[in-house]
């Protein structure tokens, strides 16, 4: 059983280097005017579009905690009025996916199932089309590195929400693991397996990015107090 003084004095085997990411949006060729076209375009659009409209859109809307999940769900609700489909899409949790192919397949399944049950919805015109986009991304270093849990806490207070998104949410695809950079480092380099597990259980869909930052800090500061 670790004591709080053990944890405070523990030095990581390797430092945690905080990074961030900057993205430039690109407009892709695909435009869906109906749910049938959405299904077609989900199949053919680039991986980067699936990433943009699920993972990345969470970063763009990081300040909302009242029901924004992904762009496909939002479009189904507001532009097509397909509430049943919107509900199913909104419940999709990107953290269940460690690669884009599986995420794409799940999206296609949800839309395809809905259209099988509601064939008349296939050709219903949306108020506005769904415009597929993607992003060119640059990973940015920061000057912030942590060698201990206290330095990690200090760093986490300073970094941008983009950095939190990069390490906490996008890391799953980069690492192809159902975890995040913070949990991996805390478990591997500081032996804080319990804390690592608790971080991974934070619900990103019912909290803002700043709220996620506060929850992480609360979990980390628990063992120190």
């Amino acid at each position, binding site marked *: 059983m670790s004591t709080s003084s053990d944890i405070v004095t523990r030095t990581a085997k390797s430092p945690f280097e905080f990074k*961030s990411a900057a993205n*430039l949006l*690109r407009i892709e060729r695909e435009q869906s005017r109906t749910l049938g076209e959405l299904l077609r375009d989900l199949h053919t659009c680039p991986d980067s579009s699936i990433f943009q409209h699920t993972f990345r859109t969470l970063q763009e809307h990081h300040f*909302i905690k009242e029901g924004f999940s992904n762009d496909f769900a*939002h479009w189904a609700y507001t532009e097509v009025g397909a509430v049943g489909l919107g509900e199913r899409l909104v419940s999709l949790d990107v953290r269940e996916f460690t690669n884009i192919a599986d995420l794409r397949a799940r999206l296609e399944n949800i839309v395809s199932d809905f259209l099988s049950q509601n064939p008349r919805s296939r050709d219903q015109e949306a108020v506005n089309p769904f*415009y597929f986009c993607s992003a060119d991304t*640059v990973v940015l270093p920061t000057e912030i590195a942590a060698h201990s849990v206290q330095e990690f806490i200090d760093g986490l207070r300073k970094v941008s929400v983009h950095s939190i998104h990069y390490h906490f949410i996008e890391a799953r695809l980069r690492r192809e693991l159902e975890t995040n950079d913070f949990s991996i480092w805390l478990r591997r380099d500081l032996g804080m397996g319990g804390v690592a597990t608790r971080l991974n259980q934070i619900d990103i869909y019912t909290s803002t990015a700043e709220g996620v930052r506060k929850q992480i800090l609360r979990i980390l500061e628990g063992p120190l107090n």
Partner: protein
Amino acid sequence: MEERRSAVQSQKELGDQRSEVAGVADAAVPRPKERRAPRISETPPPPAPPPLLQDYAPIIGKSQLDELYFLSTSVRGKNIKMVNSTAVGGGVAEMLNRLVPLLDELEVHTRWEVITGGNDFFEVTKSFHNALHGAEYTLTQAAKDVFLQHNELNRQRMTFDEDVVVIHDPQPAGLIASKKDHNARWTWRCHIDLSNPNPDVWDFLKPFVEQYDATIFSSPSFARRLPVPQYLFYPCIDPLSEKNKELEQAYIQGVCDNFGIDCSRPVVTQISRFDRLKDPLGVVQAYKMAKRYVDFQLVLAGGGAADDPEGNAVLQEVKEVVGDDPDVIILNLPPWSALEINAIQRASTLVVQKSLREGFGLTVTEALWKGKPTIASAVGGIPTQIIDRLTGVLVHSVEGCAYQIRYLLTHPEFAQQLGRNGREHVKENFLMTTNVRRWLLLFRILLGVN
């Protein structure tokens, strides 16, 4: 400067005025039957010096500022040329006035040049502009010749030795003919909505656009299918400009006192030109419907009526419909009223933008940035900014607008949450610093240093 002071009081003076009347503002004073004429400035103020990057740190945070410095490292020392058709007036010039010094400060040497042309050229390009927005237009060979001739004259006058050349809007699009003679990477930044262009004009311009290395649009819905990469740059506002910077409460109160706005009662505002497409008459109708249920004042503030016969006609119609209602305040302001507009927006309980058609709708961005619960039509770029019932409320009719005014005025907690989310949405996506980030990313991509 002296003229400006005599016409519009300084922030301090207006603050003093507020303290003089503070004692009576709290009391239940009957409204004056006739509002005294507001003091409106007749001359433009001198331009404020452009801000430095460091000035944005309190707004976006040091970490995001550091990200800009890092992004600039690999394009530091590169030379960029921006070309447009006017140095003053209009959103593009306003944006370049802020963008160019900020890029320069990051040591991305940016030169801004303006093309020249006679009246014939600018008449043709104005017609092109309207036609690209979907207006009826018969494209003649003479118009094509004027466009080509002036682009060629400018091309011969200008040099293109930079690393990246950015051409803004259709007027200088023909300068692309110089691409073959230089090593620069060329980008066309289109600020207008091309979703429904006049086919003849677009067919004429498209071969020029297709020669660029990249294009930039303000919304996916404004873009055309093109064989070159298309990037998305949302229009942006400068949080440090006169129209958007923080103001002292005393100054806001002073402006409201000057214009006869009672800050102790709810204020619903639409800021826009007196233009049918902004539907000021629809706003007045919505006001009349909602007013049966809730007490509030309506402020319609904008310009465009002084030098535009159509604008003046709309203004007169609005005044006629309003009649002698003392709770509707109509302000026809000169173009240099940024501080006053800022103050009115900040004094508002709700902001409305009930346009029938819209470009991106930067007045919505301004309102959201000030944390104001905003009700706006789902047209143009507005749905990009207003995520319905999350960052504001979208409406499609006068009745919808009236209902949402009633709802938000009677549900202030929900309204405040919309305001908070709206401000964060602007901070993340529609600020000048976000645009600097986009330009740096684009330069890295175009120059292959990504």
